[in-house]
């Protein structure tokens, strides 16, 4: 696809301003700095070479040293007044400052004093340079993660140390495991640790607020070929891969309009507005315990569930729970085994 004209314009202006300040720079280095191919840099230089002020006589044009360019070095000799870097647009400044603020306030950054200081100084400089107070947009990344767990996890990540975790999964099953941390992903209000689980022998994602205890081991992490920091692979798959998958059995929920948020927050395969204001959500869920919990929490807003096994499973768990309340009312010891489907959460990290 052809590059957008405005994106190219920003780079063309950026090249002139940068070269005016930096002096001669190799084509390769420019390509790296501006994130384009060396060939694109040469095309940009060609475009700049014929641009200038009206009249477009030789003295009106932006100029480069032709001999240097043959040696692969771009040397600007005439900038036609375009020496200053372009300021950020309002939208750019707002989004960047809001992102830095959100990062600064996030538990993953606050867990490390040095890290928080770097983010704070970057934020200060950007705010000063753009004059953007960015009160228009207010982003919060994640809530109440245990600061000690976060500090341990984030420290191990920075120093490349293996972690020993005590972790409770979505099915409420606790396990102990050693994990080589790769990334801390913050998304949808939660922080997730992505790493290589030595027990499972594979890549796993852990919600930080479900890490019961974390200890950094005196063992350096091994290279498991996990995507490194800054890679932009599918985080949604990381986060939701544990409960939803295209090949899993389908379930359909009809929800009252008040439970609209469910459709907005779960990995729904399809969402349909029904004429009476309710919504039909189709899910593919690998983990029955997760769906059961969803139904227990939202019972009053669930109009219908199919297939019937799913409805029955949740209803039975709810009845067991109500029995426990009845027993508590009678101040009698709860019946043994009054405990919904533990152990059905296989496949979870």
């Amino acid at each position, binding site marked *: 696809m052809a590059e957008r004209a405005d994106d190219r314009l920003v780079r063309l202006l950026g090249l002139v301003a940068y070269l005016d300040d930096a002096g001669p720079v190799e084509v390769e280095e420019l390509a790296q700095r501006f994130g384009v191919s060396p060939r694109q840099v040469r095309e940009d230089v060609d475009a700049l070479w014929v641009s200038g002020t009206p009249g477009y006589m030789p003295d009106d044009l932006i100029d480069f040293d032709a001999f240097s360019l043959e040696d692969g070095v771009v040397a600007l000799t005439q900038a036609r007044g375009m020496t200053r870097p372009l300021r950020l647009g309002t939208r750019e400044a707002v989004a960047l400052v809001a992102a830095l603020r959100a990062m600064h306030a996030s538990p993953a950054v606050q867990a490390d004093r040095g890290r928080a200081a770097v983010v704070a100084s970057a934020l200060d400089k950007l705010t000063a340079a753009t004059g953007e107070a960015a009160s228009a947009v207010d*982003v919060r990344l994640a809530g109440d993660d245990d600061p000690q767990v976060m500090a341990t996890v984030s420290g191990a990540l920075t120093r490349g140390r293996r972690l020993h975790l005590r972790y409770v999964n979505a099915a409420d099953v606790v396990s102990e495991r050693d994990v080589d941390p790769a990334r801390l992903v*913050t998304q949808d209000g939660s922080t997730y640790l992505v790493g290589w689980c030595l027990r499972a022998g594979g890549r796993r994602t852990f919600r930080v607020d479900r890490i019961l205890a974390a200890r950094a081991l005196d063992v350096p992490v091994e290279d498991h070929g996990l995507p490194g920091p800054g890679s932009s692979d599918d985080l949604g798959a990381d986060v939701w891969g544990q409960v939803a998958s295209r090949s899993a059995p389908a379930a359909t929920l009809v929800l009252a309009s008040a439970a609209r948020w469910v459709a907005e927050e779960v990995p729904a395969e399809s969402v349909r507005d029904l004429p009476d204001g309710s919504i039909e959500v189709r899910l593919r869920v690998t983990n029955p315990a997760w769906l059961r919990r969803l139904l227990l929490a939202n019972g009053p807003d669930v109009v219908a569930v199919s297939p019937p096994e799913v409805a029955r499973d949740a209803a039975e768990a709810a009845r067991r729970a109500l029995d426990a*309340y009845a027993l508590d009312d009678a101040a009698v010891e709860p019946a043994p085994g009054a405990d919904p489907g533990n152990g059905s959460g296989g496949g979870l990290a």
Partner: protein
Amino acid sequence: MGSGDGTPARGTPPAERLLNLVIALVNTSAAMTKQQVRSGVNGYGDAPSTEAFERMFERDKDTLRALGIPIVTVDAGGHSDEVGYRIDNDAYALGPVDLTPAELGVVALAAQLWSDKTLRTDMSRAMTKLRAAGAGEAATDAVAGLAPRVRAAGDAYVPLLEAVSERRDVSFRYRAASTGQVLTRHVEPWRIAARGSGWYLVGFDRARGAARVFRLSRIAGRVRVGARSGAFDVPAEVDVDAMLGERVGVTRRAVLAVVPERAQALRARVLRRPDGAADEGAQGEGAGGARRAARGRDVVEVEFRSLSAFADEVAAYGAAVVVLEPADLRADVVRRLSAAAALDASVDGEGNRG
């Protein structure tokens, strides 16, 4: 507008035409009239008609302004009505930023926060500008392994941001969560906020005469932005969290009877020993808990703020967690469980009690 015939099939590529316009308007001594642009600036002579030129020039001005290039209009001369254009050179340049490599690494990571295509385009452009400002190589050690992301805000974001920035009112069709009905709302927009997995607009709802929160994903269709800027005042203090109900009321305590080994995520939040461990048996027996210890269960105290959110969480544990106190929480959880217990009632007879 928008017939699309303004761009010539051949001739100067748009990026080069824009570049020449910028250079011309930066270097002009006073200002340039449209006619001077058309006859003088490379690329505009390609326009086949006056109308085509006008469209092209208007669109280019919009493009440049969107990029942060300050085009201003001035009177071209005393004896003519014609308007002249130039670039405000003082407002053109980025202030000195002087980012260290570590800071540039932080900024580059922040730029990856957004999921929307529009915002990602904005961010890559912002990074081009910052790199052009001479910042060194980005060093990512300081933020190694961090990957902050927010969910896409959707199409409403751009017009709403423009409206918030310029204090213009907006109207949009909105689907009410309570009824599912779609109604037009007229709003003075104050803030755009992201919390959890949702994007929200906080503002003053004209028809209701009160501050309201709108979820962006429930806006149906286009957001219409009012013509007048500075149309209202934003209160000095907008407490987004309070309006979203994230900080309603005070922190309360619940007493729960929990099956041993169960509800670990809930237990971990409650009682945390200073060393960070949350071992079995570490659950202290609070004053309230000791009173009504259910035999066979651990009695723990948990703090909560939102009654309904906490009731959701507790109900999800089913029989593993029983609320002892307070009574309103207990009632809320029982209400959820009773509804869930009836989920298979309409199916057929066979699923009942067993």
